[in-house]
């Protein structure tokens, strides 16, 4: 009888999913695992997240660029959708590039993998602390500086971006720091 695929609800992964990433079962993504390519991915992901965070201002940019014709509007909208999809795709590639170590449960990792995963979470926690501090300051000074308000850009894209940062930061740190994954 085939063994049941265990689901790790808290981590949001399955046993088979984690094992296939750990064991090179899917060799078509091997090129992603060199440190250089992983770092390129981290840089691209950071750019995508920055673009997403500025998403609340896309409408004002649209006005400033005088995009009035339908064609220009369509081009702008496609570019916006492309950025969002790139971030989602980048997140998936990032997970594959680090073998899903950041989301894997302890029982499927060896002691070195647990150690590097924990270190990446430590750094991610520090970065998130500074990020939350920055967001709190932004909540205080943002409306005064008219960065966002109830009738203008509302900062919702900033929050979407922050959620993606929270989800991907440990993988980004692993991708950047580790020589071999």
């Amino acid at each position, binding site marked *: 009888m085939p063994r049941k695929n265990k689901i790790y609800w808290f981590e949001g992964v399955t046993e088979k999913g984690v094992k296939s990433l*750990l064991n090179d079962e899917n060799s078509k993504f091997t090129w992603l695992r060199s440190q250089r390519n992983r770092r390129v991915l981290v840089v691209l992901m950071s750019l995508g997240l920055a673009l997403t965070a500025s998403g609340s201002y896309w409408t004002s940019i649209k006005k400033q660029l005088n995009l009035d014709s339908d064609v220009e509007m369509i081009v702008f909208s496609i570019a916006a959708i492309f950025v969002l999809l790139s971030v989602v795709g980048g997140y998936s590639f990032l997970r594959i590039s680090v073998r899903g170590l950041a989301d894997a449960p302890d029982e499927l*990792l*060896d*002691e*070195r*993998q647990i150690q590097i995963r924990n270190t990446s979470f430590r750094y991610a926690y520090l970065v998130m602390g500074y990020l939350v501090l920055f967001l709190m300051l932004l909540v205080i000074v943002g409306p005064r500086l008219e960065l966002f308000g109830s009738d203008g850009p509302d900062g919702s894209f900033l929050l979407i971006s922050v959620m993606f940062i929270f989800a991907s930061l440990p993988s980004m740190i692993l991708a950047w720091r580790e*020589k*071999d*994954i």
Partner: protein
Amino acid sequence: MSRQPEEPIFNRIEELRIERGLSRQQLADAVGVHYQTVGYLERGEYNPSLSLALKIAQKLGAEVSELFSLTPFRKVKSNA
């Protein structure tokens, strides 16, 4: 108490693994780690826990003291 920077630990894992005709993957499977962890161990970039060190020594048929040392091992010239 502050933690001192980690002292280098020298090992002969690669030498003994090759002598026993094992691949990194085979040794990794035998001791329950990822094959890249074996690479990290052989290059001295990761120091194993005591239980992992004991498992590796057992698999390679050596004492832990024959595998790991705080001083570099002397190179043995091969007659082959």
